[in-house]
């Protein structure tokens, strides 16, 4: 055993230093395409973090400033240009990928990651058609390289776009109980966000539910998807308030669905053991928009 140990030591001490360098060179070769992808991921994460921070501060209970504002949030965001720059930078990094890089990334089974990131950045930059085309392309070119989170995101994308489209319509509304507003709510806003009937399958809440099913009940992506469903309900709630000067009643199935979704979120946080952080999120949604989390009835 002692002889063995000596032999092993001698063997490795023989390793020339330049061969160690060779290991590093070999590692780095062929990583250029991956580095572009990682740059794009970093840009996207920075932009998304900033955007979430700005958007969610009122939900977290910011005092004073927000309460004075009547305009939609994004119009008063001083940092919004930085956010847009971040997403644009994501697309720039992904645009640097050559044909050779594309082949390398496909061989490394990372092409699905690329396309998902690209479609999300296009969505945030309001290039909805491009985002949907990229999502479709990922299904054709990288179906076997779409992993659980990315696959759920691409499935959710049409719903996320609908929420943004409805948001723009609501932001442009002049509050008041008018025929025009009622038509807008019934024809454009409600169908996009929560649906006109329980069986409606074209609205954002339904599309996001299908994405949740795709991901599986306990995948962390559900934290995002459920809050997006709540965002859809919130937009509907504001549109309703603009017209009727009150919130949807307890007999409104959209409100009921929002309560079930918040209940699902609470269950998810318990299953994933998110502790106090999860409770804070639930309480924030609950108390800000008066949505009581309720357990979803079992079929």
């Amino acid at each position, binding site marked *: 055993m002692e002889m063995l140990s000596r032999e092993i030591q001698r063997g490795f001490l023989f390793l020339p230093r330049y061969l160690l360098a060779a290991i590093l060179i070999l590692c780095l070769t062929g990583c250029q395409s991956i580095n572009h992808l990682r740059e794009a991921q970093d840009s996207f994460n920075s932009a998304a973090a900033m955007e979430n921070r700005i958007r969610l501060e009122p939900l977290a209970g910011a*005092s004073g400033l927000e309460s004075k504002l009547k305009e939609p949030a994004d119009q008063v965001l001083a940092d919004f240009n930085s956010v847009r720059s971040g997403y644009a930078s994501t697309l720039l990094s992904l645009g640097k990928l050559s044909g050779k890089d594309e082949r390398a990334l496909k061989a490394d089974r990372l092409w699905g*990651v690329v396309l998902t990131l690209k479609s999300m950045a296009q969505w945030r930059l309001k290039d909805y058609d491009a985002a949907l085309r990229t999502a479709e392309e990922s299904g054709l070119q990288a179906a076997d390289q779409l992993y659980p989170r990315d696959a759920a995101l691409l499935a959710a994308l049409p719903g996320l776009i609908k929420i943004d489209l409805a948001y723009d319509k609501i932001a442009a509304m002049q509050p008041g109980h008018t025929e025009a507003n009622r038509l807008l709510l019934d024809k454009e806003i409600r169908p996009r966000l929560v649906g006109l009937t329980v069986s409606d399958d074209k609205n954002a809440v339904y599309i996001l539910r299908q994405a949740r099913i795709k991901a599986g009940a306990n995948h962390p992506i559900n934290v995002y998807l459920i809050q997006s469903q709540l965002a859809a309900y919130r937009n509907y709630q504001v549109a309703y308030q603009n017209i009727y000067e009150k919130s949807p009643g307890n007999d409104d199935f959209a409100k009921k669905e929002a309560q079930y979704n918040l209940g699902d979120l609470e269950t998810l946080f318990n299953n994933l053991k998110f502790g106090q952080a*999860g409770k804070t999120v639930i309480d924030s949604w609950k108390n800000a928009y008066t949505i009581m989390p309720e357990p979803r009835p079992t079929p």
Partner: protein
Amino acid sequence: MVTDSTALILFVIRSAAKLSQQIRLAYVDDTRRRDLILPLPNFFSSTNVIDAVDYFTYEDFGLRFVTGYEWKGRKYPPDLRLKELLDQQQAGTLDAQGEAELVDLHTKYRNVACAEDGGLSWQADGGGKADPEQIYALLSIQQWQRGTDPTPSTLHRISGTIIEIGIDYALTSPDLFDRNSKKGKAVAGFLSGLDTTIDFKEGDLSEIPGRLFVAMLETTADNSALLSGDPKIQDFVNVTTRSISKDIAAWLDRIDADPDLAADEKSEARLCAKDWAEMVFRGMLSSGGRLVLTNPARFMGVKDPAGQVLIASVGTSMLDFILEDSRGVRNVVSAEGLETILQAALKTTGEHPEILAWTGNEGVTKLLTGLASELARTENLLTFGIFPEIARMVLENTGKNLDLFWPDLKKEPESHLFVVAARTTLEILSSPAEAGMQWQPGFGREDILSVTQCVLDELVSNPGWLVNEAGQLSGTLEEVLSATLGVLRGRADRRLSPGLAADILRAILKAMVLRKDFISEVDGRPIISAIVDAVVAGIFNDERDAAVAWQLAGDRTLKGIIDVSLRQMAKHGLDKATIEKLSSVMNDQIALIEAGNLFDLDKFAAALSNKLSV
């Protein structure tokens, strides 16, 4: 030492290439699994005056801040300014400044509510708010749910690669150990086995123990001379380890290929398979070794149609039975229990190799599976931990009359008289007493085993009263046991121990062979049960003097009375009249005890004989 520097340089280059490839793959995996911060879609996150009014309207939300409330023993008065604003809003007189103030109060009290629920550290000046970082952090989403990432971690890749480089170095270095020596060959063989069967850098970590075990078994098989100088033992080690290693390798492959198992279920199944294979291997070495030494021709000479020796077939049968585990047997069989079954299986198949030969080596597995299935039909029976002992009894007694007890060996090895008899007995003994019965206790493990052993012994020694003309178990066993137990439950009380009750049942079973008429019925039950009833009825009667139970309810005395009664009754006619005579004699004995006399078993026997002779 690798003296050829060219060979060393080539080895180093190969190793460097291997390591760099794995580092790159780790980089790729990390990129794929990187967390992504997901931006929520556009929505109206700021609250408005309607949201504020909603919040302060409902009891489940903020109404308490309007009306005042008590929390943790402290009273909080109503917020009068809040109420004033809400009244103005309802009256339609609230101006823009009032609206802004109302929205601010909504924000303030949301934070108070959060603090009261333990959500944040509340600041006395009322300016505190929830920690937004907690909310933002939850939107950083990973690619896979925890525990489902199919790619190896960076540490796994790198350390696995280093291990493989070490194995390569050991295999290519001629001076590391003497390959001409037996030990050197064994080490080289083991390392070679590792090199070809285990992927340390990318294989699932849970695969490694099982594959290491297989490699160890294969090495042992090829180098059995290292373990013993006795050729019989060498052969035995060789065949046993070879058969188990093949079997466990096949199980590991089967687990890998199972589409219905999730990744974490596969990991658990692999580790479980390896643990059980190790236990079977140890059991085979300790049990089989002794048998091989006593009768090598039987255990090593007899081969199945595939050429595998008998002893190896028993080991793989046992392993297959445990790993199939459709009845949760793994939960109730320990290493000791496994060895008990192994020994019995080896002994029986040694005497009757056709059990394996005629059933394609599946006879033992099917018998044990059938037994486990039968026991599992009775609720909680397997938890008694009796399966190994019952299996041993069934296996050992099977060989005593294979044609009778296992007639359909070739077609239905699981339809076995002992299995049916064991189940019948166990079902009756393990059933709880009905409500209202005087005697409630349940039988313990040892009592159940002793009665079952007695049933199986009777099947072997006196099958006449248990087996019908079709060669199947008759209903007699169930009738006799149920009726007798029913008598004990109805008549006895806590002075009857479960052990004594088991003794009485065994006495009944052994007595059945004395007279066929014991099974005849009187008053709707077998006569033998009526005899027991006649004996115990007076003993456990609360209206009698306590001295009666004191003298007669003892273990030895009561059992003695039962034995004597059964023997005496067997010599005379068995009908209602003779039972009444027995009752009469018992009453006389009881009267004597109540008069202050001591009970004498011989005198009782004589009195009973005289009475029955009349």
